[in-house]
């Protein structure tokens, strides 16, 4: 393995994010958005070939589908997983690990994609609605990708509308099962975090080169824990960069992070 002389921070994050799926076995790896999708594809063709994946429409594919414009029939279906079967076959039986980009995340790992500000009856800014987040979060593994680590995303109190379940004891319904809740990684433009702190608190496990823990803390609306030994996020290898480029022939990844900054090595 050799290290490429040139790479972007986004590519470094894609490689870091792909680690979320390492060793997950036979489940559906869903990356929502260009970087998470490239990360899932990278995971499947490198360390975890058992992963299952769709073309984004209805077909299960063994060769991940490149993002962006392509011939409609370029993908080669190996199986079938349309939306009409998604809750039966992927979400509710827990056969999925999704990586998503919520608008807000709180200290409990609860997230929001529904609306910002105001009230349920009259939100200030309407977004998508809760979509599949309540079900995803209580049924299967989830990770997060945050392209701009800030207090706007990592909010001080609870998120404005709890769209996905986290580890908030006050939100536990007595007698109900929450043991399927399984939050793994949060990959941001500053660091990598997990939920390995006290009572599943969010914990910094790796800092990107040149970033300090204090910088991350300053950009976060709640107190972060630090892993006993915080790693530095590694640079991508030339092999990984080539795979990313193959699955993103139109360089859509250049638009994921503001100003597409260069990556840095250790």
């Amino acid at each position, binding site marked *: 393995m050799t290290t490429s002389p040139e790479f972007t921070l986004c590519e470094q994050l894609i490689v870091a994010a792909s680690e979320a799926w390492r060793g997950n076995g036979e489940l559906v790896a869903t990356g929502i958005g260009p970087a998470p999708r490239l990360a899932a594809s990278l995971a499947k063709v490198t360390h975890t070939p058992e992963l299952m994946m769709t073309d984004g429409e209805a077909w299960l594919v063994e060769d991940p589908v490149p993002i962006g414009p392509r011939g409609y029939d370029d993908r080669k279906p190996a199986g079938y997983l*349309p939306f009409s079967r998604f809750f039966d076959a992927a979400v509710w039986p827990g056969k999925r690990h999704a990586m998503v980009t919520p608008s807000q995340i709180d200290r409990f790992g609860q997230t929001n994609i529904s609306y910002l500000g105001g009230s349920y009856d009259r*939100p200030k800014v309407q977004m998508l609605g809760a*979509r599949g987040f*309540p079900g995803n979060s209580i049924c299967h593994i989830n990770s997060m990708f945050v392209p701009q680590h800030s207090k706007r995303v990592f909010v001080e109190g609870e998120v404005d*509308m709890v769209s996905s379940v986290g580890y908030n004891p006050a939100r536990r319904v007595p007698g109900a099962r929450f043991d399927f809740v399984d939050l793994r990684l949060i990959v941001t433009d500053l660091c990598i975090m997990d939920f390995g702190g006290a009572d599943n608190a969010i914990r910094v496990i790796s800092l990107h080169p040149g970033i300090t823990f204090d910088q991350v803390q300053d950009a976060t609306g709640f107190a972060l824990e630090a892993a006993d030994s915080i790693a530095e996020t590694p640079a991508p290898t030339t092999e990984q960069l080539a795979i990313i480029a193959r699955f993103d022939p139109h360089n859509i990844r250049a638009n994921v992070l503001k100003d597409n900054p260069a990556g840095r090595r250790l």
Partner: protein
Amino acid sequence: MNKQFTIEQFVASLKSGMTIGIAGWGPRRKPMALVRAILRSDLTDLTIVAYGGPDVGMLCATGKVKKLIFGFVSMDAIPLEPYFRKSREAGALDILELDEGMLQWGLKAAAFRLPFLPTHVGLGTDVMAHGGFRTVQSPYDDGEVLLAMPALKLDAALLHVHRADRRGNIQALGPDTYYDEWFARAAEKTFVSAEEVVDRMDHSYPEDARANIVERCFVHGVIEAPLGAHPTSMPPLYGWDMKHLKAYADSAREEGGWDAFAARTIGADEAGYLDRVGGAAAVSALPLPIF
């Protein structure tokens, strides 16, 4: 037995205040010709149940919606539906915001004539808190507490498919049929528009009988509506019209934007619709979306 309706007969059989489910998914295979008939009608105070796209947005823009029961409202490549946003941000809608899986579960409860179906989904979220959902305890030894998703009974469901016959046999082709069949089974009356209506499916397309997504006892009326999903996608026949959807979304930023857009496109009748939006040939040639 002849279930064929004209689009005028279809809309005349709906009433204000009804709960109407609209099948399809976001900007995909929506019964837009039927939705447009509602937009042109005097119907009002509707409760709409949908995985919403421009269908929901246009009904909001026209002030037809009293209550919205939804899993999401989005146009995929244009993630935020502008007129749905405007309406909800203005506090103009009664809202029941659901998880996507809860929505289909509620349709299934209605189809099976059950008061509710139990699920883990929604527990611990604000969907549960705001939606007023109640829980139920397993009567078995596990004693587990679950959310009881109430039946979502529909007065009418609207679907758009590729083929129908006069008896109500329908065929939906394409890679995904979403939850159309459950909208149909949850409804008192289901109206299905089709690209083509034939006399008898067994005489015309017997080889595609597996595309019969819902049995004809659940189909009340069929309406011929060629290219009737426009501007949403209808694979494998034609894709969504993103240029049109973009113009629609842009109109939301202008004063009187919806009225101008509607006058230019929706118009007074369905007969001239395709000519107003670029012609049948252009719509037929819209490329399938890439995901």
